[in-house]
């Protein structure tokens, strides 16, 4: 499997996805998916966005209408593909002067 490119493919296809969505789709750990997303983010090919979601108490779904005040907003961190994750893009890593300690 080429997990980094698979992550890119999902983002390109879906436009936006969260780390857990990608992890579920590729059968990876969420942590590893987050690291790969962070890599594309550093490369300037993806950006992190906070997507608002509303957690419903169920009352709204039952026609409670305006009376239901038992809802709370929460945010899911998702990643949006900005494009340009192919060859021509320069790496977003800060260049470090090549020095080496010789023991």
């Amino acid at each position, binding site marked *: 499997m080429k*997990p980094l490119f698979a992550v890119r493919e999902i983002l390109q296809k879906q436009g936006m996805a969260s780390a857990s969505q990608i992890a579920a789709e590729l059968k990876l750990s969420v942590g590893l998916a987050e690291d790969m997303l962070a890599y594309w983010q550093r490369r300037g090919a993806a950006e992190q966005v906070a997507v608002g979601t509303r957690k419903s108490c169920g009352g709204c779904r039952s026609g409670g209408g305006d009376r239901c005040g038992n809802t709370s907003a929460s945010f899911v961190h998702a990643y949006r593909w900005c494009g340009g994750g192919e060859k021509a893009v320069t790496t977003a*890593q800060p260049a470090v002067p090549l020095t*080496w300690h010789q023991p």
Partner: protein
Amino acid sequence: MSTCHEENQKIQFTAGLPVIALAGNPNCGKTTLFNLLTGAHQHIGNWPGVTVERRSGNLSLAGRKVSVVDLPGVYSLLGGGGEDQTVARDFLLDGQVDLIVNIVDASNLARHLALTAELLEIGRPMVLVMNMVDEAEAQGLEVHTTELSAALGLPVVPMIARKGRGRSELLGSLTQTLKQAPHGTPPAYGLLIERALNVLTILLPGGNPARRRFEALRLLEGSAEPADPGMQYALQQIIAEVEDGSTEIPADLIMDRRFGWAQEMAAMALRRNGNAGMRQRVTDLLDRVVLNDWLGVPVFLLMLYLVFVVSFSGGNVFLDFFDQASAAILIHGVGHVLLETGLPTWLISVAAGGVGGGLNLVISFIPPIGLTFLFLAFLDDSGYMARAAYAMDRLMRRLGLPGSALVPMVIGFGCNVPAIMGSRIIEDPRGRILTVLMQPFMSCSARLTIYMAFAVVFFRNNGGQVVFALYVLGIIVALLTAWLLGKTAMRGEVLPFVMELPPYRLPSFRSVFLQSWQRLKVFIFRVGRVIAVIGVVLFILPGIGWTDHGLRSTNINHSLLAQGSRALVPIFEPMGIHQDNWPAISGLVAGAAAKEIVIGTLNGIYQRQNAADLLADYRDPDIAGQLWDALNTIPANAVTFITTLDDPLGLSAMESTFSAEQASGAESATLQAIAAGFTTLSAFTYLVFVLLYVPCASTMGALRREVGWRWMIFSLLYGTGLAWGASTVIYQTGTFAEHPGSSTAWIAGVLAAFALLVIGLRLYGQRSDMLSKPFLNRRASV
């Protein structure tokens, strides 16, 4: 792969004590391990030039003192993170380190092994500590360090540092490693990258091939700069060669392989077992099916089918009991009591027949609707509904909708009002408006009563297919409406939908019951209130009418209801409703307030037309006998439920008029009158009209609250126009042979009107685009 890593060699210690560096991701248990190894022999200070704490201590290994340094957590040697990570990175790359102890969290192994890959590339002696194995085991994972050790070429020590477990094994391993240091086996990067690395390794100065290889990797990844222009030129040539042979850049190829390697190593070291492992396997298996590109949508449709089977067929087990018992008490019982008290006849009729009859109708719906809510809550709590939305995302996006639009649509099968409220889960305003405007076309449970009454009269042999066709027609019209509006009046980008997939879990009975009870309670009170009020109105309107002497009590055929309905009949004649069938129009007018009362209205009208004495049922009601009869329906219906599981709507079992009455809530006089008033074709067009026109006053109220007056009025006119147009086209097509000229004119007129609507919507969309562009430009310039 370079062979330099395969040779083990004796460590050449740096000046002073040998230095062991503890390295790993943040929160992997480094400091716990540091404390476990060094105990009280610690020195705390700062790293030179920065305010990052430096912790070091001494450890005795087989009588030999060594220094242990606890490095700040670091995710990658390539960059990123704050000052503390820079300190750790610099020390690992350039510091006087004789042995690296890489600590990884076994419960999150793949992520932590990504750093291990980078550490292996440095070429320093290393030991891997797999910490927190207890947490991995709690997740149902079995730890296999032998295979991992062989693959990495390193000692791998499983530990639970906070409990001190594995300390002696680690000390033994460190002692051995300091004597004979393994360098480990870093990931292989494939032919293209390995060839580039070999060339660069030769070109780079320095003695240690492993470290030159690491420098080469950093150059290829762009995380280091070439030391001189000559090397710069060589690097460009090498990168160009890699890019000629691949569609990817070298940095991406290297990172991809590193992540892939980490995943492979983690899979080798940890295997699923036990209950938790079984649970994960079940989750994986279920997800493989319900999230599958091809199976996801059919599985969702199957789940919906099952909800229908259990809700409607299961609800029918108790429907007759609720219907008959509430009729016995609220209509006959209340009527009898009021009659005994000597109240005026009209008041008894209004209270018992109007209010009581209306409430009886609501109570009859409690079993199927309650079960629908119960099973939707079950699916929601189990984690399936989120996956259904995910599976439908692709189809929905093609229609310009987010996948999450599916959730309100499903709720719409129960009631359109909560479906419209449920559209709030869609954050994108455009997607939310489109989703809200779709909901009136979803066949709610109230419409089902009308479908069933007509199905058993006109479509006895294929009623199931007709009702299913109406449900599907509603879905198609809803989706096409969203697509049409998305292409014309509401053009815009479809924002991708993001939904966290919750884990599967067995829903708690209490949670599911409470959730569905809350929904049912609101439904009963909301609908009950509407029906009670309208029930009163519908008992008054058929009793009074304009006469030569003004507004007077009159026969139903000359009542206000009849006069008003007859005035509207010409509008409905193209769809097959004629003057003598004016009660059908009354039903539609009442249905604009609430669909639940369409059959009730027809019931009331036909009863009045046929009954000589409205109070006959109240004079001597056998309420106890009626309640006993109601109770006896439960076992009989339970048998029917079990034997008709393959027919969720129970239509094939309706062989008699009696069972049809039970299913629809209509009495036989009503069914006979319906049969007399319609042909099969006009009955179908009537049902199509019922499906598509304004759903109910409550839904319109919900629409206004969610998307405003303008869209509410649009929905009202669009839905009613579409209902009329579709019914007219169907009827005129069906009767084309009888009057081809007028049928052609009607069909052409409807199609022309629809074309005008599309043009109007398109112009509206273009105007909206023009108005919004300067705004967007202004925003961009800010």
